[in-house]
């Protein structure tokens, strides 16, 4: 992590003292080392080594096809890496089924949201709250009520309180985004992987989103975001990992990465989506 230590620049110091301090202190939530995956002829990601630190927001940046989403899929077990290891709080994830990894405390959103479109907004959240569904839930009625209260609280936080009864399919674009966020909030995940969560949000809802995220991080959630919009990245990232052609070619504090002309060239060369 040599580049990591070089990352502590004066600018960064002034920018986010607490975050930086916590970065030095923070333990590794997720340690990815030497992970590669190849599809047919294409090397989607190769030999990626990356640490996600507790209580920080790490952004994955890079041109399309850099392998960001593939990396998410390898972490969450939707894809099995050809080689390399992924450790979450010291436990290896490779080979576990996605639902199992999710229950360990890693939840993700999808670029195409993948809401439960024919269920009510509330049911979407409740479904996320009850990963283990046997024919019944433990705790009986009063546990059920607490779940409902919590769901309501989350929906209010995400500004969907009024829409609890609406079918998810009938929500607006922004509301979709927040519902997918609400769903993940309902879980007790300690690590969130968000795939372009803020793309296309209008300024007010973007502020709401950023507020939510910060709030969650303060509660000890670690977040990893795939994002294209550089303003958003600078706005919310504590750390940035820059991917290109399946490799991590740089990692460090936002300003450091974003001031590197070489990377910016690659980024815009790759073309923002």
């Amino acid at each position, binding site marked *: 992590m040599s580049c990591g230590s070089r990352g502590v620049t004066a600018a960064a110091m002034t920018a986010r003292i607490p975050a930086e301090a916590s970065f030095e202190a923070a333990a590794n939530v997720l340690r990815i080392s030497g992970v590669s995956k190849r599809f047919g002829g294409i090397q989607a990601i190769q030999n990626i080594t990356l640490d996600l630190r507790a209580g920080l927001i790490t952004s994955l940046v890079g041109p399309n096809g850099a392998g960001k989403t593939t990396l998410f899929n390898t972490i969450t077990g939707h894809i099995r890496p050809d080689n390399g290891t992924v450790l979450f709080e010291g436990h290896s994830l490779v080979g576990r089924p996605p639902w199992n990894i999710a229950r360990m405390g890693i939840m993700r959103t999808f670029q195409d949201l993948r809401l439960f*479109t024919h269920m009510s907004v509330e049911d979407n959240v409740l479904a*996320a709250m009850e990963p283990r569904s046997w024919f019944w839930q433990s705790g009986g009625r009063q546990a059920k009520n607490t779940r409902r209260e919590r769901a309501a609280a989350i929906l209010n936080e995400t500004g969907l309180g009024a829409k609890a009864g609406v079918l998810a399919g009938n929500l607006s674009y922004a509301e979709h985004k927040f519902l997918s966020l609400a769903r993940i909030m309902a879980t007790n995940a300690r690590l969130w992987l968000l795939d372009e969560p803020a793309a296309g949000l209008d300024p007010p809802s973007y502020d709401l989103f950023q507020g939510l995220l910060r709030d969650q991080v303060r509660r000890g959630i670690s977040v990893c975001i795939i994002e294209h919009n550089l303003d958003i990245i600078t706005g919310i990232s504590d750390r940035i990992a820059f991917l290109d052609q399946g490799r991590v070619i740089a990692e460090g504090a936002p300003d450091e990465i974003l001031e590197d002309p070489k990377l910016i060239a690659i980024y815009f060369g790759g073309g923002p989506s």
Partner: protein
Amino acid sequence: MSVYLLNVGVFICIYAILALTLNVLIGYAGVFTLAHAAFFGIGAYVAAFVAMNLSSSLVVVLVASVLTAGILSVIIALPALRVRDEYFVVVSLAIQILCVTVFSEWKGFTGGLGGIVNIPLPEIFGGTIATPMQFFLLALGCLAVITLIIGLMVRGSFGRSLMAVRDNESAALALGKNVALIKTLAAALSSGLAAVAGVVYAYYLSFINVQTFTLDTSVLVMAMVIIGGTGTMCGPILGAALLTMLPNALSYVSFLPQTEIGSIQQLLYGLAMILMMIFRPGGIVGAGRSKRNRN
């Protein structure tokens, strides 16, 4: 006269049970199966076997049938559910056909085409169920209980999980849902309860043979669910009632050639299926728009 209505009523209840249980898979789990009649059959054959060889107690027979069907469905579902969508439709089709072959070839157990005759009357609380009225009440009772079970199930967290899997499997996975387990449980529940219909049927006719448990029956029940309304509680019951009485209704339409009644009936529900899918995929009861989204 009422006795004849009771007859029809019993069959409506039997088909309603089948439709409701099939709907658990088609409507709520989004698993499309054509093998439902096979489990209807398994229920009936097990009922006949137990009733004739082990115990005439209705309760014992019910338990035996439901467990057998449930367990068998799990054994079949575990490998079969590894495939999805169209693939699973075809797998279920294959299962249905294999089961029918077994039903007609394993003569020692099923009596083949000849079937099983003289299935004794069911006994419960010391009394026997014999009159059409008693049978109707039995069928109605079973239907009520199953409606209750499924109703509670779909409103509870398990129902939410099922619908989550139906609406988006990968998202459900990512939220920590053990999709395979959920689907398997749904299959077990659906098939196990479908066996109840088999028990009532076997007792009521005191005769069963393979003809009742063929693909045609699977399709008929499928039509009941779809025409009634997938993913609703009363859609399937309504569908079952309508399609069960369709032949009776048709036989009173004088200008129809009697020799073709069977064909005309099937033709009608085939047509209904097509039109439903084009104009009202949700079925009569269901919402106007589709109950399902693109995968």
